[in-house]
């Protein structure tokens, strides 16, 4: 195994005319991430997010508070005829007791939470199978990117598959999570990086899953959700 490692590295060094290891020194510090000065407030940014998300088939909206979120949820579930809803353990969902409130409001719908002992493989497999049956999943978001209408979720906050397996995915966000562009998000992530706390998976989600592999016809819901909703809680305070 280390044979091939030395062989490949040796070939590279010979190709670059290096006398041996340690002679190539990488130059330059971290790449300066430029991002235009942000003159928009949270309102302007979320407006832009809404516009971009809608352009790619996402369904963004603003709710003044959690009560409005719950009202909208009831409408959504009723209109689409959803029977099974999965709620993630994301901080935003826990803070507002979304799972609890939802099962009280909609007793006929089975509301199910991603919780228990994640260290047991059996329960993880069980979790996947259940998620694959869900019509709707609710998670929190970790960042919103206005420029592209993107939701960014870290695996430390919600599982990777809860935003992927169900037919529809709803991300709940707060106004302080909206950033102008990816570069600005990365600047924020910079501190996390220095502390070595980068989560195992960061996922950027922009609109629903899609494909154009058959005669370039656009189809939503290739392998992931057919609908992607992003609701901002607390207006644009």
């Amino acid at each position, binding site marked *: 195994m280390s044979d091939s490692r030395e*062989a*490949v590295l040796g070939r590279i060094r010979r190709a*670059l005319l290096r006398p041996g290891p340690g002679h190539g020194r990488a130059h330059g510090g971290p790449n300066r991430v430029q991002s235009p000065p942000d003159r928009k407030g949270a309102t302007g940014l979320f407006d832009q997010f809404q516009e971009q998300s809608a352009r790619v088939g996402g369904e963004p909206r603003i709710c003044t508070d959690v009560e409005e979120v719950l009202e909208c949820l009831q409408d959504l579930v009723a209109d689409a005829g959803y029977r099974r809803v999965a709620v993630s353990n994301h901080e935003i969902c826990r803070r507002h007791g979304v799972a609890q409130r939802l099962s009280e409001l909609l007793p006929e719908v089975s509301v199910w939470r991603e919780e228990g002992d994640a260290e047991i493989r059996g329960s993880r497999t069980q979790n996947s199978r259940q998620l694959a049956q869900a019509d709707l999943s609710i998670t929190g978001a970790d960042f919103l990117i206005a420029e592209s209408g993107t939701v960014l979720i870290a695996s430390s906050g919600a599982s990777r*598959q809860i935003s992927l397996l169900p037919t529809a995915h709803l991300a709940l966000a707060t106004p302080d999570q909206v950033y102008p562009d990816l570069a600005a998000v990365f600047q924020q992530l910079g501190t996390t990086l220095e502390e070595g706390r980068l989560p195992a998976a960061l996922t*950027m*989600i922009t609109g629903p899953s899609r494909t154009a592999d058959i005669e370039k016809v656009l189809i939503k*819901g290739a392998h992931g959700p057919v609908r992607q909703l992003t609701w901002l809680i607390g207006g644009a305070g």
Partner: protein
Amino acid sequence: MNRTPSQFKILASENVADPRLRRTFQSATGHALGQRARSVQLVPEWEDLRERAHRIKEEAVEHLDVYLEKLEASVIRRGGRVFWARDAGEASSYVVDLCRRLQASTVVKSKSMAAEEIGLTDALEAAGVEPVETDLGEFIIQLAGETPSHIIAPALHMTRQQIGKLFQEKFGIPYTDIPAELCAFARQRLRRQFLSARLGISGVNFAAADTGTIVIVENEGNARLCTSLPRVHLAIMGLEKVIPRFSDLPLFLRLLARSSTGQRQPSYVSMISGPRREGEWDGPEEFHLVLLDNGRSDILSDPRVRRSLYCIRCGACLNTCPVYQRVGGHSYGSVYSGPIGSVLTPLFQGLEVAGDLPYVSSLCGSCSNICPVKIDLHHQLLWLREKLVSSRATPWPERLAMSLFAAGMKDPSLYRMGSALLRLLLKVSGKSNRPFAVPGWSPTRDFPALAETSFKQWWEANRQQGEGP
């Protein structure tokens, strides 16, 4: 179907003779170009971004050993494993051994040009493991026993009716040619595979050396499934996919999405750093990264073609290439097609096999202009031609013609004599459109009509009359 790069002329003429294929490629590439142009227009600093990306790639490639070692260390620090593969055989056996250890009878796979390049699916099949392609386009061509015809849209060459028939035959489902229904069927069928497979294989778009993060870009969600559900995730990448820093990613992501499909961001970007961490509900228990050389270090050793390693596989140079637009991806007879394929294939497989490809270009330079990392593709094609000419004997008529041409171009009086002679010859022969019979060339080409007088004569006559432009 087994296609090789040496068959370019045959394959291309088959494609050109098929009006449907011709239309498909022209309209698909035209559409993609339009989308790209619209989204690039919205970025006034586009040229600046290209320049920066070029410099970062240059930094990475010129210090490839340093950054790869750094990447390796970062991946290991995050609990992952790294395997260096000299060639296709080594990479494939590593994957096969892993399947044996996991007792995996099927593996789910998302799109990877590197896996395609080393023929990974064939190696798995030979070892009794069923590789399941999960990208819709790849799923279709795997069923059909075909190869991709475009980097971004592998099944571009097939019609919905062909796909409908294929599904009917292979799965015994009622015939439909409605794309949404075909897609829904594939989704349902593949879901079961995702939920049971022990190993998921993915490609890599970028790998950040400082954090050990691999980035996968897609629209369907199958790569997310491949990297989240199975117990083990193996990612395979060409050596050149490494970039120095995590913080370089926003730049590259911006360039890639806009160049390939004109999107601001694709539906999904996964940034994966090592296996699942404690407390997480999913993610693989093991993460393996295969670093594939397979000829890349040879490319690196020639500074003139080294820049072809900057490629981020966006597909823009294919779409903009007047040759690709007409002949389609299969004509190139290899995994990589279009201008970048014409550079890489001869470098990977040898000029003896793929010597035609550097000539499959009008050298218009459109590819170099569109490339988001500013690879001077048409210069690289020229250098390959030079290599070819100096390495193999050129037929004597061509050598004679070229040396006459060179002499004429260098000496004004010889040039004048030559062009007068040509005019005379054409008049006398009476065949102004096909004056010379050159096999392989003249039957399909008309000689351009010559003006009565040469430009120089015309200029002198008119300038004297004071009627010049």
